[in-house]
């Protein structure tokens, strides 16, 4: 008798959330209302998902001897329209650039057809790339690189109009005042604005502070949408926050980054907060980080158990695999926006896989080609 009584005293929101832990549960009236505005976009995205490279495609690609074979096999996939006219001799970077171009074109098509609030959600997906592009150009201009070369290396999804003028700024305040105030990144910059010079360390700190503000804003937006979108994106973004905390810790292990600065870069949500963050701040080597992951309930302890001692080589791969599992799970529920996030991440992972295969083929170390592949999509789970 105590069980049902307890559920009644909870708010309807919490009761529903507890009951709907499985996929396929209706959250509200979205079955009636979602397709009115976003049904066509969901249809396109599910079509794109069925066009991902299959197990058979990967089997063919890993057996390729030359880059021309890779091109031949890619011509029997959805990438045929961008790759079939590439002249020989091929280079891995051209193959990857063409495939990335296809991903960007498909994303732009979905973005054009989107109405609010889906349009804002899709814009949020590009802000991460914008932050990476800004950091790329600022670091490149610090090392006196050519601007055109840097612009070619930028990710197309994160371009904005005034990106080339980033080279003019000499400190953070100018960076904000001259360029970033007109971009969507402006509200994330409030913690960064200072008169410090732009050197390597400060630029990395700037990247992480911007990304922390962006993740917090994205999570707040998804929570305001409610329903299955909020449920799925909360899981995904909490994992993303934990992953960044661990990567920041590992990357700053032998640097001059102070403990306070490290603590400042961690997000305000995730499984590691609050006790995991305190432990991570005190870490001095990789084994301590692994112990912290072991102590955290949830997916991080599972990852930690798969790692070998004192080696962080495969950590990145395990993080990507976990992210792909969450993306595949998003497609099991209908009438939510998490599938748009998931399809972009899955296609980016596919591009990383193709890059790995192309590089292995080009450098003639085909015995390692299956090491770096991360499975994408439900059939490979």
């Amino acid at each position, binding site marked *: 008798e105590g069980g049902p009584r307890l559920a009644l005293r909870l708010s309807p929101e919490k009761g529903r959330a507890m009951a709907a832990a499985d996929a396929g549960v209706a959250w509200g009236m979205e079955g009636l209302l979602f*397709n*009115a505005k976003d*049904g*066509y976009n969901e*249809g396109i995205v599910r079509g794109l998902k069925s066009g991902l490279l299959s197990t058979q495609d990967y089997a063919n690609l890993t057996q390729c001897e030359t880059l021309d074979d890779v091109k031949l096999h890619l011509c029997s996939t959805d990438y045929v329209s961008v790759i079939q006219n590439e002249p020989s001799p091929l280079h891995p970077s051209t193959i990857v650039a063409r495939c990335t171009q296809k991903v960007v074109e498909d994303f732009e098509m979905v973005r*054009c*057809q989107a109405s609010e609030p889906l349009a804002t959600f899709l814009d949020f997906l590009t802000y991460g790339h914008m932050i990476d592009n800004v950091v790329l150009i600022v670091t490149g201009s610090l090392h006196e690189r050519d601007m055109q070369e840097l612009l070619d290396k930028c990710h197309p999804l994160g371009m904005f109009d005034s990106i080339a003028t980033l080279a003019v700024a000499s400190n953070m305040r100018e960076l904000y005042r001259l360029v970033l105030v007109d971009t969507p990144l402006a509200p994330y910059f409030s913690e960064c604005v200072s008169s410090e010079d732009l050197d390597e360390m400060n630029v990395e700190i700037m990247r992480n502070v911007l990304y922390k503000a962006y993740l917090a804003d994205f999570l707040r937006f998804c929570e305001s949408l409610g329903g299955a979108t909020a449920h799925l994106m909360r899981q995904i973004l909490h994992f993303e926050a934990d992953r960044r905390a661990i990567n920041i810790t590992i990357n700053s292990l032998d640097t001059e980054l102070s403990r306070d600065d490290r603590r400042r870069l961690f997000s305000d949500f995730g499984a590691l907060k609050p006790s995991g963050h305190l432990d991570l701040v005190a870490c001095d080597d990789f084994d301590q980080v692994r112990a912290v992951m072991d102590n955290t309930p949830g997916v991080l302890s599972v990852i930690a158990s798969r790692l070998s001692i004192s080696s962080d080589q495969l950590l990145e791969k395990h993080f990507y695999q976990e992210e792909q599992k969450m993306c595949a799970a998003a497609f099991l529920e209908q009438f939510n926006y998490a599938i748009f996030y998931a399809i972009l991440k899955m296609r980016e992972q596919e591009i990383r896989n193709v890059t790995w295969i192309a590089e292995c083929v080009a450098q003639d170390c085909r015995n390692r080609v299956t090491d770096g592949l991360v499975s994408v999509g439900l059939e490979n789970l």
Partner: protein
Amino acid sequence: AGRHTEGTRVSRTCTGIGMQSSTRLALFWAVVALCATGAQAADGDQVAPFFGFMGAMSALVFSCMGAAYGTAKSGVGIASMGVMRPELVMKSIVPVVMAGVLGIYGLINAVIISTNIHPEGYTLFQGYAHLSSGLACGLSGLAAGMAIGITGDAGVRANAQQPKLFTGILLIFIFSEALALYGLIVGIILASAGSAAVKPE
């Protein structure tokens, strides 16, 4: 000493005059019976034209709401699609035309109803029949308009990318339109049932 400090105004009043709950219940049913007999005592036929004209109004208004939703929603899709494929715009006008037809159904039914309402000798039976006729046609038109709007929006965008979809999408429009046609047919039947009835002498 035994007064309630909470409760509705009615219960507080009843408690104030010292009434018990059984007495309160009996009083309630007495009021209902009085209203019913009062209604019968008045001539129901004097109220009948209200229902009749409400039927005519609802037939037109709800059908036009459905037609407006269908036109607006699919119009947005056509405008988005027409930027890149202007040659397909005329072929994609089909959902707008089908949504417009829903308004015509409502017009037909409203005219049929309103020509059968007379100032003299219009019974309550006829009033109810005309009300039901108008609501049947109007709400079916609203439903069909919403269906045509949503499928029209997605359909014209999909047709721009894959022209082979045209026949299938046209079938979807026809089935949505059929819903409003059912409403019109039933509306006409009900209106004729109302008009054929003659008050027994």
